[in-house]
């Protein structure tokens, strides 16, 4: 058994009361692709920060290549041969690719440009060195990040949730690159919560739960179910079966909507048409940055159409295009935005006050004054029904974990008994348990006759929830695709625009 490249023993790190990592042991072999698996909040990111030198462990030892390691900064980590690609890229949009790389890698511009091209060719990471980053797709930006790491000649490359921003085709290409890197002598530490992917590429997996290691396994020898159980400590509940419905009344109808946003970097929408009926869940798939935010703002009422553009958006049969969010809510529309903090809830305010934000029509106000008792009762009920783990209704929203806050916001909107519910990114950053609960709830509502529109970047989720899927690409929608008749690969094709009449350049 060859000596491990990286060895962690008894690593612990706490932030005040929160024990992010407790007594972690980990061995990464040379030339291996090693997964670190766990739900949100399990401690994966913290562990990576410790390995990369962003933070220092409170206890424990790290041994790198046989020598003890005490990193003071990421720069030192890079010097030792450890590189990291974060989930949220550290790229500067107004600078070009080579300028971004120059910030981290010493060298003359001409030399770096050449090296970028060479590395791109060798590892399947082609990208134009002279392009400004703001013009690159997400996949291309990720390539820049990886190339930037590779330039420091790492022997260990850490990737934090790399596939969360890629369409299916690009995932394959990425895995190809990773295999090439491994064969070239670089070990990969791969953080993810996507069980199928981990089984596809990794030869070793370490599972974290609540800050501790619950197992080291070879993922190829286990199925997704086993891995999930190790991750959350219990069996995942079955997804809710969908009761087939059809012919409900139209609750949301968008007809041929074109929209040119003011922001020059925003995506223009053209010819958007969709219909959501009662008892139906329509999902909108697509890679981030293809117009989802713009479309969401138009539906929620945050962006209002100009007068000339009436007759485009109908809710409950009424023309709402020129109406603001409040007016639409009065018709029975409810909305869970993708930004929990800042748009869905006010972080500094208590849950009670946050209930007031949208639930005030439920008798929580009298003559314009807040009925404190009623508001508190509403909030407590919401907390109970939706299993929001919190000390109480007076806790600040910002103190809740992502999953719990999402449960609260979804619960709040559902308690309005809307006829039409619009949810954007329902389980982003939410732990598996809460995500499952939310999805079950949505299907249950659908069964009872609610019309639901979901925008999500998680294809698995859409397949679980939706009756119909449409794909958003460069601001245009695909035709309706019945979920049970469609495969993820087909969706992937639409995501990269392979089916559009004037197929633009392929976002590989």
């Amino acid at each position, binding site marked *: 058994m060859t000596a491990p490249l990286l060895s962690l023993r008894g690593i612990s790190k706490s932030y005040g009361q929160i024990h992010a990592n407790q007594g972690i042991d980990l061995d990464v072999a040379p030339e291996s692709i090693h997964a670190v698996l766990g739900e949100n909040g399990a401690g994966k990111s913290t562990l990576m920060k410790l390995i990369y030198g962003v933070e220092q462990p409170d206890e424990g030892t790290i041994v790198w290549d046989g020598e003890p390691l005490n990193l003071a*900064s990421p720069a030192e980590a890079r010097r030792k041969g450890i590189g990291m690609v974060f989930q949220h*890229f550290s790229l500067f*949009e107004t600078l070009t690719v080579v300028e971004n790389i120059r910030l981290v890698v010493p060298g003359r511009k001409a030399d770096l440009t050449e090296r970028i091209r060479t590395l791109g060719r060798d590892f399947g990471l082609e990208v134009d060195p002279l392009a400004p980053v703001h013009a690159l797709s997400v996949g291309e930006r990720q390539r820049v990040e990886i190339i930037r790491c590779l330039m420091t000649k790492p022997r260990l490359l850490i990737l934090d949730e790399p596939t969360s921003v890629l369409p299916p085709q690009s995932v394959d290409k990425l895995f190809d690159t990773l295999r090439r890197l491994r064969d070239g002598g670089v070990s990969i530490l791969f953080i993810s919560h996507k069980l199928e992917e981990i089984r596809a590429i990794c030869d070793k997996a370490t599972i974290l739960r609540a800050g501790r290691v619950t197992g080291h396994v070879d993922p190829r020898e286990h199925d997704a179910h086993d891995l999930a159980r190790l991750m959350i400590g219990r069996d995942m509940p079955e997804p809710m079966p969908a009761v087939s419905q059809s012919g409900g009344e139209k609750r949301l109808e968008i007809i041929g909507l074109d929209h040119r946003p003011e922001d020059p970097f925003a995506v223009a929408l053209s010819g958007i048409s969709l219909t959501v009926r009662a008892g139906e869940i329509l999902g909108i798939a697509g890679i981030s940055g293809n117009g989802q935010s713009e479309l969401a703002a138009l539906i929620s009422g945050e962006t209002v159409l100009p007068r000339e553009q009436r007759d485009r958006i109908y809710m409950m049969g009424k023309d709402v295009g020129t109406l603001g969010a409040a007016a639409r809510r009065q018709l029975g529309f409810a909305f869970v935005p993708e930004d929990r903090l800042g748009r869905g809830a006010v972080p500094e305010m208590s849950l009670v006050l946050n209930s007031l934000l949208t639930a005030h029509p439920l008798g929580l106000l009298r003559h314009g004054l807040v009925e404190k008792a009623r508001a508190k009762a509403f909030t407590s009920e919401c907390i109970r029904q939706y299993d929001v783990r919190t000390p109480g209704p007076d806790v600040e929203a910002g103190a809740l974990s992502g999953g719990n806050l999402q449960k609260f916001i979804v619960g709040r909107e559902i308690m309005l008994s809307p006829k039409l519910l619009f949810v954007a990114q329902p389980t982003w950053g939410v732990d598996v348990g809460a995500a499952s609960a939310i999805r079950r709830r949505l299907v249950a509502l659908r069964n009872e006759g609610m019309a639901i529109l979901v925008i999500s970047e998680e294809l698995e989720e859409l397949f679980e929830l939706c009756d119909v899927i449409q794909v958003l690409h460069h601001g245009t929608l695909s035709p309706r695709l019945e979920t049970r008749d469609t495969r993820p690969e087909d969706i992937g094709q639409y995501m990269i625009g392979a089916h559009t009449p004037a197929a633009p350049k392929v976002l590989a």
Partner: protein
Amino acid sequence: MNALEFILAGMLAAATPFLLAALGELVVERAGVLNLGVEGLMAFGAVLAFIVVYHGGGHLLSFVAAGLGSAVLSLVFALVALGFRANQVATGLAIGILGQGLSALFGKTYESLTVKGLPKLALPWLSEIPLAGRLFTQDIVVWLSLAATLAIWVMFAYTKVGLVVRATGENPKAAHAIGYSVTAIRFAAVAFGGTMAGFAGAYAAVVYTPLWADGMIAGRGWIAIALVVFGTWLTGRIFLGACLFGAVSLMGLAAQATGLDVPSQVLASLPYLVTIIVLGIISADRRLLKLNGIASLGEPFER
């Protein structure tokens, strides 16, 4: 000499106080910091420079003193706004007021006194050109400030230092993540801005009109800040704006001298109007604004 010659001859010198201060503030804002105390920093530099020259220290030493003094004062701003993360707008204004107060305090006994200025250096051959020849006859500080403009442009376009400053201003979190000390970079930028403001004030008090009068900076620091914004944080445009402002001011005065029957108040407002309109038009491209705007300007950086 006719009006055109007069304007060409005087334009660069008139622009120099604005230009030096604006170049300094450009670097500061590119790093993501908003320092509104430029006027006070200029006044402080001006009085220090004047005192040095008055007591026989010579012009070189006076500029050094002005640069150092204003740098120190600007570091007070940095300590409060970056170290203690106080609101940058309020802190900048406070430092500006402090700077003006200090300049009034130190300058009290020198009110209306004069010193010797600097001679003009004529570029050979170029200064013989008819009409535009006087453009090439300027004192050394003007030449140095032109060199500074070029240097700063090169810095931002080609050097790593410039890249690092731009990155810090656009995305301090990312800059921190890749290992740069945002705070250190911003401190350095603020000190640089202070030094330049000191030079600008020194120029006004010991070269341009070599006398000291309380309040003689007369709002030039504010105009410099405006030039940075209207020039969309691009060195070339800021230079253009400074020259334009200087030229139109001189034009108004030349017009009065020729007896043109336009009210003096209208002529006095022309430089502001013209500069705003010209820079406003060439910066109206929203793409450009988004591209060049400093994303983190004025926001405190939390790690």
